């Protein structure tokens, strides 16, 4: 048997990673705000082999390090992550034979920490900064990962998703072309959340290259939010990949709505989405209400399962309450 996307037969899990020939699925929203003038499609990134949009950046960065010979002699990877990039790298490392050390902030969901340990990643959990400096959220994990790479250069190389242009290129090469093909060039609006900004920068650059009229709307949680992996623009100093010229509008959504929309997606669409997807949906629905016309695509970064504890913390009645 040979690798074949039609029959879904592969020689190696790495071959399953998405690209134009093997795109992640797009599913139309039907019961939540369906209009003929502005249909909305969700691009389900949790259908990627390791469960999130980060599979794309992880593979791009890892391939680049391989090509540059940075992973020879048993050297592994160390990376700061809110979980998904670490999971993608750890799984790729498992398939390709590289050890991975992930540095995560304490507030990352327990499920993600457990998955990283199950995958065999060495894990550093960094206490959330005592009195963080505005704009430096994430500084502790980035600095600790850099420290490992600097103190043990023979053991670790750091891809550094916050500054690595391969993170942007991965989306320019895959996410953008996939959406263009899947919508037959009809996309008018892209809705995307902000984290490292690799997704928004790479996808936007590709789509605007094909059609400069495509509107790119970044959806961000309100300040003080606790949604894993997302950043408010006030926290974006850590990323050099944020390029405001590739974004038409930045919409701020009260972060509490993320969980409300997760329930809507699960209960009314059968889409088992995570909180960042809920936030992106809210941003798209607002554009719809404001009279947007055309065809909207929402990038749903990951799925529900890693956030059971997070949802239970924010929504009453999800877990059995203790009796007092």
């Amino acid at each position, binding site marked *: 048997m040979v690798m074949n996307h039609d029959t879904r037969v592969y020689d190696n899990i790495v071959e399953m990673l998405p690209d134009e020939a093997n795109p992640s699925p797009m599913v139309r929203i039907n019961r939540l705000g369906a209009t003929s003038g502005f249909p909305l499609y969700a691009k389900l990134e949790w259908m990627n082999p390791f469960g999130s949009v980060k599979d794309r950046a992880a593979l791009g960065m890892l391939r680049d390090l391989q090509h540059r010979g940075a992973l020879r002699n048993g050297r592994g990877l160390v990376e700061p992550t809110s979980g998904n990039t670490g999971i993608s790298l750890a799984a790729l490392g498992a398939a390709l034979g590289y050890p991975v050390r992930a540095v995560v902030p304490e507030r990352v969901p327990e499920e993600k920490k457990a998955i990283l340990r199950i995958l065999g990643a060495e894990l550093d959990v960094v206490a959330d900064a*005592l*009195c963080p400096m*505005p704009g430096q959220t994430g500084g502790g994990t980035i600095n*600790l990962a850099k*420290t490992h790479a600097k103190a043990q250069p023979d053991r670790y190389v750091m891809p550094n998703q916050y500054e690595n242009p391969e993170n942007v290129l991965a989306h320019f090469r895959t996410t953008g072309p996939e959406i263009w093909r899947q919508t037959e060039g009809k996309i008018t609006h892209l809705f995307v959340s902000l984290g490292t900004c690799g997704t928004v920068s790479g996808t936007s650059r590709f789509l605007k290259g094909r059609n400069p009229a495509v509107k790119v709307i970044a959806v961000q949680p309100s300040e*003080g939010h606790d949604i894993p992996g997302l950043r408010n623009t006030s926290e974006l100093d850590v990323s050099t990949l944020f390029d405001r010229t590739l974004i038409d509008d930045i919409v701020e959504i009260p972060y509490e709505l993320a969980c409300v929309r997760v329930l809507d997606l699960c209960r009314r669409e059968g889409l088992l989405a995570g909180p960042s997807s809920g936030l992106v949906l809210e941003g798209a629905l607002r554009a719809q209400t404001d009279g947007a016309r055309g065809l909207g695509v929402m990038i749903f970064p990951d799925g529900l399962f890693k956030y059971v504890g997070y949802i239970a913390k924010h929504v009453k009645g999800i877990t059995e309450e203790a009796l007092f």
Partner: protein
Amino acid sequence: MPYAHPEVLVETDWVKENIGKPGIRLVEVDVDLQAYDAGHIPGAVGFNWQKDLQDQLTRDIISRAAFEKLLGGAGISPSDTVVLYGDNNNWFAAYGFWLFKIYGHENVKLMNGGRQKWLNEQDKTFTKDKPYHSPVLYTAKPPNEGLRARLSEVIGASGERNPNLVDVRSNDEYTGKIIAPPGMSETAQRAGHIPGAVSVPWSTAVDKDGRFKSAEELAEIYLKKGGIDSKKPVIAYCRIGERSSHTWFVLKYLLGIENAKNYDGSWTEYGNLVAVPIEK
């Protein structure tokens, strides 16, 4: 316009040149030792701000005897030049500097830009190796209480508007929108600030690379815009006394306000007082 006491600052390049020279010692002071254990400047010993520099039973700075034990155990002599650096923009290193000065260590300096600047410079290295320094007998001086503001003095300063009080926390903490920075446990009953205190967040003192701004810029920020009278005594406070050490260092050593004190009790003490008013 030079800093009032430029000798208390050294640059990362100077540290690189002077690593291992006799009489020069490096100490990394961090919120905990996770970062130090992962990698530090060769030859540096690591101090844990909470466990090594504070007495957890008395909620106080460590005693003179404990300070002597800590430094002697690290092989530091009173005549050594000690260069301090650390995480979080040198907050904890600045607290260490304040403590070293309280116990009269003559030659102590901060590495400008702290751990992060060194980390981001290609020509600088880190090691995981912990250095061994033979213990010495260290004799400290009696504590210089003149560097430390106590509650009674702060309450007096609040009423009289003298000394100047500087709140170095974020604007949201100063105005009472939040009690503690996001993600931190709220260790005070009330949100707001000490009546009469001006707000100059600590972060306004540094550039993006973590180095202190120029003397001209600092004078503009603290004296002109912040309204601090450099002829009067001044007291800096924050939430737990580490960010305010950073500002205290700026006021006393970079701007040369001789009578500058750090109120290490800070908001976790003042914000919990019974029958003492605050402002929002």
